[in-house]
């Protein structure tokens, strides 16, 4: 599939390739709901940014929802996760409350980090999110470190990162490190084909990121990152390997972002036919089709859609009504005493 990127399984093919087993029906529907929540969240952040409510910059993950949601289906609530500056989906998939995440984006005191972090640096330890990192590749290092603890605690750590991060020193150092120490960690590359504005293929030797694992003797898989079922299946296998003491796995999940790299980027460098091909494989459409085909009725799906609409509306309303931090009372301290 690497040679024909962007032309992965159609809705029909996804139906035909359905696995024989999976989590209970309700869990698939909830997973779809979480993906939809991420999509709504990103669209809302876009809208609120244009209204001047979200500041600085944001990096939206619309189109990439199946990767974090699929991986988190394989995790326990107390497993660790490290995300990127395109991290709203990572946080929401791991369990961060949408209202608190929205408030963080708006710089409000009720934000998950009290408005100190913003869009790129969200931390939510209560849900195992050790951080989202504004430096490309930082999540790889953080998850490797969390895995040092996880190895002693019977837990698993996951790093999400983009194709661009696979050319950072962190990637090579940490994959070697994790393999040497058999760390229970999943390195999940969200390959959206562009490192910022530059096509991945033009700056990445070897064509594929997944094969880089072979040089470390590490297990790896290249898969369709828009297929929730495929992502979950690969993650379940990798998590079992990690928990069994058999070390790390590299998953290259091929996907596509619907927006540009960041707020300043209209993404005009992407060929229209490529965009069209990927939009036709929207992970939400694929999931809906499969759910309807196998798991739920139209009514149940419509009810889930309505539930998520309400959840998102409430999150944004709550965030907009929340106070800003008080520079006198919320200045904070440099060190923990």
């Amino acid at each position, binding site marked *: 599939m690497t040679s024909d990127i962007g032309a992965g399984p159609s809705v029909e093919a996804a139906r035909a390739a359905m696995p024989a087993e999976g989590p209970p029906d309700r869990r698939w529907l909830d997973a779809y709901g979480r993906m939809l929540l991420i999509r709504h969240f990103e669209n809302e952040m876009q809208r609120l940014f244009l209204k001047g409510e979200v500041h600085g910059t944001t990096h939206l993950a619309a189109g990439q929802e199946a990767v974090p949601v699929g991986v988190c289906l394989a995790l326990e609530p107390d497993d660790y996760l490290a995300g990127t500056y395109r991290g709203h989906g990572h946080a929401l998939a791991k369990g961060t409350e949408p209202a608190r995440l929205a408030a963080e984006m708006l710089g409000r005191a009720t934000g998950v980090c009290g408005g100190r972090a913003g869009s790129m640096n969200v*931390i939510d330890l209560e849900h195992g999110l050790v*951080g989202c990192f*504004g430096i490309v590749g930082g999540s790889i290092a953080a998850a490797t*470190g969390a*895995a040092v603890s996880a190895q002693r605690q019977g837990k698993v750590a996951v790093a999400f990162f983009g194709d661009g991060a696979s050319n950072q020193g962190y990637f090579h150092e*940490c994959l070697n490190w994790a393999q040497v120490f058999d760390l229970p960690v999943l390195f999940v590359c969200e390959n959206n084909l562009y490192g910022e504005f530059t096509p991945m293929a033009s700056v990445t030797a070897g064509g594929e990121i997944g094969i880089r694992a072979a040089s470390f003797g590490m297990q790896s898989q290249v898969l369709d990152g828009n297929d929730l079922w495929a992502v979950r299946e690969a993650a379940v296998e990798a998590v079992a390997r990690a928990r069994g003491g058999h070390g790390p796995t590299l998953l290259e999940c091929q996907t596509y972002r619907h927006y540009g790299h960041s707020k300043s980027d209209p993404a005009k460098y992407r060929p229209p036919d490529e965009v069209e091909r990927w939009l036709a494989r929207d992970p939400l459409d694929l999931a809906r089709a499969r759910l309807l085909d196998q798991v739920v009725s139209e009514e149940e799906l419509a009810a889930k859609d309505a539930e998520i609409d309400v959840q998102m509306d409430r999150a944004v309303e709550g965030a907009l009504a929340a106070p800003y931090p008080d520079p006198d009372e919320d200045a*904070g*301290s*440099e060190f923990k005493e």
Partner: protein
Amino acid sequence: MSEQLEFRKAIRDALDEEIERDPAVVFFGEDVALPGGVFVTTPGLQEKHGRERVFDTPISEMAMAGAAFGAAVTGLRPVIEVMFGDFMALPMDSLVNQSAKFWYVSNEQASVPLVVRSAVGAGGRFGAMHSQIHGTWFQGIPGIKVVGPSSPADAKGLLKSAIRDDNPVVFLEHKRLYSVKGAPPAEETVPLGKAAVVREGSDITIVSALRGVHDSLQAAEELAGEGIDAEVVDIRSLRPLDHETVLGSVAKTNRVMLLEEGPRVGGWAANLLGIIAAEGLEELDDAWIVTTGDTPAPYSPTLEDAWLPAAADVAAAVRERLGAAAPS
């Protein structure tokens, strides 16, 4: 007189005792476990505490600092050794952007209890890439502490405090101090962020750090024979910077000389002198700085000795500024 403690053994003892005391403490780095450290600071720790607690790593400083950060926010208290201070250019992203910022940016969800030990400083003919002191690279980064001992007692007490501290700490070990012997510590720990008056005097305050404290003390002894009574302050911590102890000393002596092994611009001495001027100008009759040259550390003995300020340079500078004659 109690038994003398060697500086390198003080470091080892502090690690040994803290690994023993707290099961969350882990220690890792390049050649620290089986080989026992290139400066023989950590022999036998792995044998005693096991591979779970003390282990050798790949030569991967970025991964090492990242591993320490991630482990520290998930329940461990890592101590890592980045062999030479010069190598600290590699793990700076994780230390500066991850460890130093976590406590604040997370809205105080958790702190990052880790220590990064390194051998630093010139005078060993190690050349430009094995002689730097990286303390000032980190001094301007909120959220990370920077400390360094000059005596075996402080080496043990400060390292124990650093390991027990809930914040990230950069720990500087001057390589020309490892063989120094001195009295063992009087207390279990030495507080971080506090300077120490290591010699009392009334005519001038000399402020230094690490090896420079020894050069300052030697110069003070020379000057004492000439009727100049110098007070010597070991700053011990670059962040937080204890300017109050220095201001207290300057209020007494009205003159201050700051001796730094490093370049003048961007150094801790210039920074501290700025604070002294801002907060204690009325106390000052004279103030100046002695530093290394502005080139990278040279290799050749003649060049390095000329580049590096020594006790004789400190004494000469004080005589010149005080208008005193050199002993004939």
